[in-house]
């Protein structure tokens, strides 16, 4: 039996054994043709980005099925990075984020809740807000979001931030420029 394991602003996530299904709910405020189009496009785009990220060297769930408004994929049976993060894991997460950005993918919600540790490997999940973008701004926002979650939920956060940056710089040549942009974004005081 499938059981509901998550519900966001956009989708409902259910789990059935080793599979999870993400179903984008219809929105009553959107005209049906527009609503169908957006839900379909996003579902397809999400599955593409998940597979593409894996080809770029970032572990992600395997996609089993894409059907109109829902995406069925492998359930990563691990533990959220949020609950176990240490400098070594943060550095590893930085490496993966660097690979993702070098590939031209922006995750869009790069929090430690969207990173799962399983058998010593970190998986990135939830590409619902991900998109293709090579700009420093988009990459900067990604890194900024990661720093924010780390700073708001972990002690010795600066150690984790520094470790992340070490990993990030190892896999991404523009890391220095992105970091500069992150500082600028922080200065602007934007919430997200």
């Amino acid at each position, binding site marked *: 039996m499938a059981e509901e394991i998550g519900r*966001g*602003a*956009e989708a409902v996530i259910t789990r059935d054994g080793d599979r999870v299904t993400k179903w984008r709910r219809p*929105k*009553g*405020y*959107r*005209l049906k*043709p*527009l*609503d169908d*189009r*957006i839900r379909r496009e996003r579902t397809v785009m999400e599955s593409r980005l998940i597979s593409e990220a894996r080809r770029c060297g970032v572990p992600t769930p395997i996609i089993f099925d894409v059907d109109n408004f829902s995406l069925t994929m492998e359930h990563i049976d691990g533990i959220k990075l949020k609950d176990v993060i240490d400098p070594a894991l943060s550095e590893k997460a930085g490496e993966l984020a660097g690979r993702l950005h070098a590939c031209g993918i922006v995750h*869009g*919600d790069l929090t430690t809740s969207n990173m799962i540790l399983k058998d010593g490997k970190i998986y990135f999940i939830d590409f619902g*807000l991900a*998109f293709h*973008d090579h700009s420093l701004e*988009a990459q900067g*926002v990604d890194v900024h979001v990661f720093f924010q979650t780390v700073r708001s939920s972990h002690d010795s956060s600066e150690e984790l931030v520094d470790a992340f940056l070490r990993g990030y710089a190892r896999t991404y040549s523009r890391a220095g420029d992105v970091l500069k942009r992150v500082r600028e974004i922080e200065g*602007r*005081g*934007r*919430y*997200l």
Partner: protein
Amino acid sequence: MGENLDKREDGRTVVLGLEGTAWNLSSALVDEEDVIAEENATYVPAKGGIHPREAAQHHAEHMAPVVKAVLDAARRDGLAIDAVAFSQGPGLGPCLRTVATAARALSLRFGVPLVGVNHCIAHIEVGKWKTGATDPVVLYVSGGNSQVLALRRGRYRIFGETLDISVGNALDKFARQVGLPHPGGPKLEALAKSAKEYIPLPYVVKGMDLSFSGLSTAAAQAAKKHDLADVCSSFQETAFAMLVEVTERALAHAEKKEVLLVGGVGANSRLREMLNIMCEERGARFYVPEMRFMGDNGSMIAYTGLVMLKAGVTTSLAESRVRPGYRTDEVEVRWR
């Protein structure tokens, strides 16, 4: 502006507010309870969009009668003015300077403090005052702004905003391109009512941010091939769905239970309907102030000035320089 106004000793606070960031020059007098008087003069260009210098000249020409009307009301009711509030930004530089100059003169004339108000925050504060919303996610949509905001750790934080032009600007641009007279929004809304078909247009939401420039261009292109009513409706449906989506996301993220709609584009009934549906689906409450408090008005500046004054926030002459790029999250909200 002749004789001194008598001081009242009933603990009532009376603030004069001046707004004039763009089209509308407006002065108002408020106290804690309500608006006592408001006077407006709106700049209407001969053709095309707003011209900053001409708008500023308009404001300068109409300043004396607009201010006199509310001073007459104060005199009639025997009210003493406790502070002069003005919109310090964001807005068009020349317009802001005209208003700031008048505000400084009035503050000196009455010997009362000056309060520089952030225009966006004034929209939010008057909305809360007039609807009873307490801690909403705010969708602020107007000719110059498209933002989703909420109060978090003492500041109105921007959760999402446009990456290029505002939704009102996109509406106006499209309306001009298809030959609809100014203001385009109401005309577009009226036309959209007779639409039969949805024409796909670019829907651009990036995380919490929006983009409207591609939409107005694509809609103008579509108008060459399709029925104008259909394009108008499709424009509204697309642009508003983007706004509602980001508002919903902010609601979920900030874990709030209220939505407040402010700004001139909030007059659109389809946008209201869509927000209302979203709120019902999420179990949130939806608030919209009366029409007169939606667009730019002096009362919102006067009221925000009043709450700031009561929290001890005033603006010295040295700090009263206008701020065309004034951001909402630069203001520490000390009155809540």
